[in-house]
């Protein structure tokens, strides 16, 4: 169980997050949506321990994650909104380096990299230099990096941005696969796509979760309409 409790965050004296709370169960995929500037990326960075919150707790399996960040980061996969990779490396070398730096034992690195590549559908890109990859391929490599050590929580920030339709569908199937072993929190503006494979929508507005809209078991069109309404209300 992954729980975010009363997170608050201030940036340049402006309250970006006031009181954000939600729970993500294992195997669940949660979409955090909101208008531009609502604080989605900030929330993801706080959850990824990149920004320390002003107050609030992040509980992973009931334990305070932020007070022991090294242990928490071992259970965490994070992918930023723009994949920042080492352009001089080949995909395989990059993933092996990332697995090693994340603390994976040497004899398991190759297996981990193979699994992640398989899930992210990039086995044929393994010997390609990263600088030769397209934006979509780079996102897949970044996702493979995020899921390398089979994290319990996967944070995907604006994952679908800039992807074409085919790639977005492929991304959906990848996330669904990953959700088998991790709770996934994903942010973005692509509600129609997200509605296909997320279980809940959390609408972030005014620094708080203003609405929680379940999508699992709901009519697809209704879900989209409700999310749109919630976002419109946010405006």
């Amino acid at each position: 169980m992954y729980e975010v409790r009363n997170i608050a965050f201030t940036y340049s004296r402006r309250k970006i997050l006031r009181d954000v709370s939600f729970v993500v169960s294992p195997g669940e995929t949660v979409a955090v949506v909101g208008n531009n500037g609502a604080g989605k990326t900030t929330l993801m960075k706080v959850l990824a321990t990149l920004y320390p919150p002003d107050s609030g707790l992040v509980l992973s399996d009931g334990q305070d994650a932020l007070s022991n960040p090294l242990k928490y980061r071992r259970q965490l996969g994070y992918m930023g909104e723009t994949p920042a990779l080492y352009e001089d490396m080949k995909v395989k070398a990059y993933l092996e380096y990332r697995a090693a730096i994340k603390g994976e034992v040497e004899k398991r690195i190759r297996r981990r990299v193979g699994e992640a590549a398989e899930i992210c559908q990039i086995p044929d890109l393994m010997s390609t230099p990263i600088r030769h990859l397209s934006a979509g391929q780079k996102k897949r490599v970044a996702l493979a990096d995020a899921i390398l050590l089979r994290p319990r929580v996967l944070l995907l920030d604006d994952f679908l941005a800039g992807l074409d339709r085919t790639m977005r569908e492929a991304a959906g199937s990848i996330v669904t696969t990953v959700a088998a072993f991790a709770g996934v929190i994903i942010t973005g503006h692509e509600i129609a796509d997200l509605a296909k494979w997320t279980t809940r929508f959390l609408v972030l507005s005014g620094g708080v979760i203003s609405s929680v809209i379940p999508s699992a078991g709901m009519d697809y069109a209704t879900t989209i309409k409700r999310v749109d309404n919630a976002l419109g209300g946010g405006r």
Partner: protein
Amino acid sequence: MSPIAITCKRTLGVLKSLYSTVLAYSLFFAAAGASFAFSLEAAEGGETPIAVIWAIATAPLLPILASLLAMDVWSDEKRTGRIEQLLCTPVLERDFTIGKFLGVLIAAMTALGAFLISTIFFLYFFAPSALENQTFFSFLPALMALAMQSTLWCAVAVAASAAFRHAAAAAITTIAITSAIPRGLWLALMQWAPQGRLSFGEMPLDAQIFDITNGSISSATVLSYALLSIFSLFIATKFTTAARYIGRGARQHKWSMATVVTLTIVLSVMLLGLFYRLNTTIELPIGIHSERIFSEKTRTILRETRGEITISAFMSRKDSRFRQISYFLRALSREADAVGGARINIRYVDPRWDLGAAGRLVNIGADVDSLVFERGRRQTILPLGSNFSERRCASALQKIAMPPQRKKIYWTRGHGECPFEAYGPWGMSDIARELHFAGYHNQSINLAQDSEIPSDCALVIVAGPKSDFSKTETGRLDTYLRKGGRLLLLFSGEKDKDWIAKLLTGWGIAIESAKPDGVKTQSGTDVIVSDFSDHPITDPIRGRQILLEAPTTFSHSSSSEAPGADKIEYFELAKTGDYCVAAVSERGSNAGEDLELRPTRIVAIGDASFIMNAQLKEKGNENRVFFLNSVAYLSGSGAMTGADTEASRLITRMDRSTRIKFVFASSAIFPGILFIIAMAIVIAGRKRS
């Protein structure tokens, strides 16, 4: 592998693939090569060990190398946003920083090691004599000293890289902190108060290199470098951590216990060091001074002297020369023990603190900045002027060890000769002082006025007469020589000197009109003389070289042939090409012993300017020895052997063209080849990936 090792490996991988690394290496090799080549030329003939010259020439370039290597390590991660990928991994910022620092340090040390190997390689080819008595281990303390400074510069460079998003800003900041500001301040201080050099000593960054390279490590220095390096890495870590707090104000930053403890320890040790001036000196067994080779003369004096000799160094401990003098005296003491001679006690008397001892030394006539040699009731004082040398010390030891017997040298006057008491660049006061310290008494004589040369004369020196001697004067000289007199003739210019020529011809030496042509030269106007015959005067400098300015040449005069005991022996002492530039003639040496007659000896040298103050100050080491040996031979006291021709002197024996080749090879060809090879490797690596 630990995160530190992984990060270090990755940093090295990145550095290997960067054009900027190739450029940094090439620039470093070119600049350091040129710096060393010019420093070597400046130090030619001096006592500074080659390892020290190498280290001092290289040290100022290390901050630039470190800044160029480290400028990207953090700033690039920040600029591209990859720092987020690093900060959300289960690795401490500290480990990333240390890993990156180690990568940069290894790259810097590789450059340093490669430069040392290339230096030895080029010296081996161009100036093998400079490497005599040197092994790779002679350079080890120098390498250690530079490694110590490199560690700090790399740590500062990594911190600067962590502080900026732009590599250029990081590089400029590093150079400013590690080099421009401290050296600029020092230069400003010296401009403002030049007398301060005596109080403060040399530029601390250079003085530390000098000390360690000489085998003396100050624990305070090592501790300072270690602490400052750790502190710089700590700052680098803090800059990295600060990336999490951008836009949130410093008050949000929580000071962890580790931060507080680290800062407290660093500040406490620094304050302790400041208050108590930690300065425990550890002497390395591999130090250069432990290998110091003293001249045979010094060793003989030490060996033949018994009892105890006390040497008091009457000077301030803050004096810039204090360390060198201290090393020298300790080496002298060790040498005395090694040869089983006199036991040497060393005392340091600081005029500000050791008031009782200082008062006693003042009462015996010693001034501050002098060495006082004492053996029983005998004392001698040696001022620590700019001419302080091992030879002076040996003479001082000789003075108190052996009974005083001064031989008189008469310098002729009245023909425009170089005055031995003149202190200007064209005077000969330096060599006259050398003679004084060697136990001679210098006196002038005017042969036109004095009826005859005094009987106590050990030797007559004619030092570069500009006009000819009269018939009367040469007659007096001839009379003196026929009684077994000794004459040292130093020529100058091409003026007609008929009477001198006639005098010499009678003693087997003919003056030639031809000047050396097409021979080896260093500056273009001088002549390099390196062909020496087997003779007591030249034996100590065989294999070395002297420099003469447009010398007069000599040949054997056959008109002087005489039978039996009067037979004149003629030797060509020194030649350049086919030209003889120094000759010696001796009459009566065969029969001299039997008849108890003193054999006549004449040494003629084709140039007088070679022992002028200006010449000796620059590159006149062998010139000095050649002259002193000539005097010793003529006065019958045996060859002086030349204290400074020993291994402790730096002799490259490079002529002008070889030196140009050496500069060109070490500062252009080698860095150029390295640049091409490294670029090929980087391009191939990039193509492969």
